[in-house]
């Protein structure tokens, strides 16, 4: 295991200089064969890239420097993510970095921070997230996996699902029910558990690509020390919800659609549809939608740069980006003719893979809060429409 070096002070750089530094870093260090991966990487594939980032202190952009993070301002975090996405950098098994780390920093005990944070940065602990349950998809708060205190240990029973890459993780953080009655959002606590605990079983789920990106995780009398509780008992829900403030903007990043639109252009040129005026009109509409999406994204980014926090209306970005992404891939399918039904990219060219991207896009309106649930939330919290 490498230990992270002390990170340089990125805040001393101008935004432009920092952007250039990110570009240089990616060009110098990102493994070429991992750019724009067709699927989410497993740990054995992503490990080298994880450790490269770790060894340069580039792994945790949002963490304060004293915990080994980059300590980036909102403005620079936006640049960091933007450049990573633009480059097509491979996504890491990053639940420890993005979700658990900030939560521990805010709510964890000193012991938890000093024990767990360095092991995330070193790659010793790879975390997965145990929130969703089979009967509580969009209605997350109705979760039923329960933990009961038995002496100095929590005893966990239940089942989680949609746990991304659980088969690669050696630790899981999870929401469990520790009290019943009252509002369902109450009585939920936040626990940490090693994946090799007796009683934990992992069953991979094949997604529509037949890739084992998700798992079910079963808990059968799993025992963890009392000290694995993070924050106050029965306060896990609001802790976990509050976490998703800043990151929500990235669900609405224009990069995924920009990437897809580039592929559409490439495909249209390859198939000879580029000069068809009917196609071009549709393409132009998609390009306009992307440009306006970009402008809308920037207005939210501006709020972050000004130090404001984002309201529920940031969900507009996620709705629009996911649906635009889908419309772009739908258009690919329409021009692809019989290629739309083939399993492999056209001529083996990964940039000519309409069917693959189309299937990937199906997930965009479902995960991270379905479009329907996002619209419910917007109607009530932004427009103030009655229940």
């Amino acid at each position: 295991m490498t230990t992270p070096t002390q990170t340089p002070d990125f805040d001393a750089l101008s935004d432009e200089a920092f952007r250039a530094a990110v570009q240089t870093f990616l060009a110098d260090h990102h493994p070429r064969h991992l750019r724009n991966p067709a699927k989410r990487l497993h740990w054995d594939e992503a490990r080298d890239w994880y450790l490269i980032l770790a060894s340069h202190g580039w792994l945790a952009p949002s963490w304060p420097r004293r915990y080994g993070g980059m300590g980036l301002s909102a403005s620079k975090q936006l640049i960091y993510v933007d450049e990573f996405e633009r480059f097509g950098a491979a996504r890491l098994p990053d639940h420890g970095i993005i979700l658990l780390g900030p939560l521990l920093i805010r709510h964890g005990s000193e012991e938890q921070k000093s024990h767990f944070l360095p092991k995330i940065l070193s790659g010793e602990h790879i975390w997965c997230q145990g929130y969703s349950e089979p009967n509580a998809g969009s209605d997350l708060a109705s979760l039923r996996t329960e933990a009961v205190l038995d002496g100095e240990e929590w005893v966990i029973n239940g089942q989680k699902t949609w746990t991304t890459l659980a088969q690669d993780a050696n630790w899981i953080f999870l929401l469990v029910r520790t009290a019943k009655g009252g509002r369902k959002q109450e009585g939920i606590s936040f626990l940490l558990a090693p994946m090799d605990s007796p009683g934990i079983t992992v069953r991979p789920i094949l997604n529509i690509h037949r890739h084992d990106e998700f798992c079910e995780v079963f808990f059968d009398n799993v025992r963890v020390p009392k000290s694995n509780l993070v924050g106050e008992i029965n306060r896990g829900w609001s802790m976990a919800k509050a976490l998703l403030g800043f990151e929500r903007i990235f669900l609405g990043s224009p990069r995924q659609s920009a990437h897809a639109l580039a592929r559409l252009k490439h495909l249209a040129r390859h198939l000879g549809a580029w000069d068809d005026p009917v196609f071009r009109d549709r393409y132009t509409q998609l390009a306009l939608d992307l440009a306006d999406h970009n402008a809308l994204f920037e207005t939210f980014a501006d709020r972050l740069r000004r130090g404001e926090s984002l309201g529920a209306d940031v969900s507009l970005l996620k709705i629009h980006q996911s649906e635009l992404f889908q419309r772009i891939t739908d258009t690919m399918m329409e021009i692809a003719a019989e290629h739309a039904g083939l399993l492999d990219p056209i001529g083996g060219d990964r940039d000519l893979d309409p069917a693959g991207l189309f299937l990937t896009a199906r997930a965009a309106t479902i995960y991270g809060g379905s479009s329907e649930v996002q619209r419910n939330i917007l109607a009530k919290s932004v427009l103030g429409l009655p229940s």
Partner: protein
Amino acid sequence: MSIDADRLENIRMIRDSAQAIARRGDVRRARDWRDRLPGFDRAVWRKMGDLGWIGLRVDEADGGSGLGMLEFCALAEELGATLTPEPLVAAAAAVRLLGRNAGSDRLSGDRIVLLAWQERAGSLDPAGGASFAGGRLSGCKRLVPAADGADEFLVTTESGLVLVPRDAAGLTIELLPAQDGGHLATLHFDGVQGELLPGDAGRVLDEAALATAAYLLGVIEGALALTVDYLKTRRQFDVPIGSFQTLQHRAVDLTLQAALTRASVESAAACLDGGAVGAEAQAAVSRAKARASDAAMLVTRQAIQLHGGIGYTDECDVGLYLRKAMVLAPAYGGAALHRRRYAALQSPMDDIVDGVADGP
């Protein structure tokens, strides 16, 4: 296009007989045969022969069932509703073109002949890709479904039809895996000996396009039934998700598309059965295939969305419907291609539209 009662009863019987192979909505066979060669069940194929399905469109005098497009479409729809993997449309097209040469072994299902007509993706032209000269076939035909299970191919060329055994010298078969777990093959002919037969594939390709539209109608109905059932049983926020108005309205919109597809397919079949030829028949087919292709993609996409997370897993059957739609929506021409063809033809609605324009 009122249909007489006897014929309706016949069509009902054909639909019932299709249930003997798989009940509507039962897609286990489709799942079992994914990624396994030849991609379908030869025993089921023989049963289809026994039921008279392979030669359904072949004249009775030539040993077929001599039935119409309404019957063929009803059958194809039932096959679509169970995602039946057997290549009935491509085989039925071949034996229909063979006509008196169809032969009892092909009609019975003992011998499988498939039509190989397509030069390239996105084209409806059966003439290109392969040429026949001096008794030898050369060139390339693409996108032939289930080719690994065929015994022979009936190949379209500018000179006519050429019948080629699968094991003929000079024939190489390249299998491209398809989204539905089957394959679409490229056939490379390098001076292959074959038998030249007369025949023009044009009309038969239109019939195959219409039958594919009917199969897609079955796909639509299968996906929709699965989804409506899910809406009734899956609970979120303490209620069945089917009680959410947005999902209700979307289900209604998909039902409307299914109804339009059925009306479009059945009226096109009646049009062909009524003796329409040329532009009138082509326009009817293009209309039905454009509708079926678009509706199948819309309905299966939305079926995934309405299933939520579970819809994105391989174990949920709804994905099988989507992947079949991905393969068949473009087959025998996709929506955009048929829309263009429809526009280029004298549209049958032009009379209605132009008639109205004669205002005072």
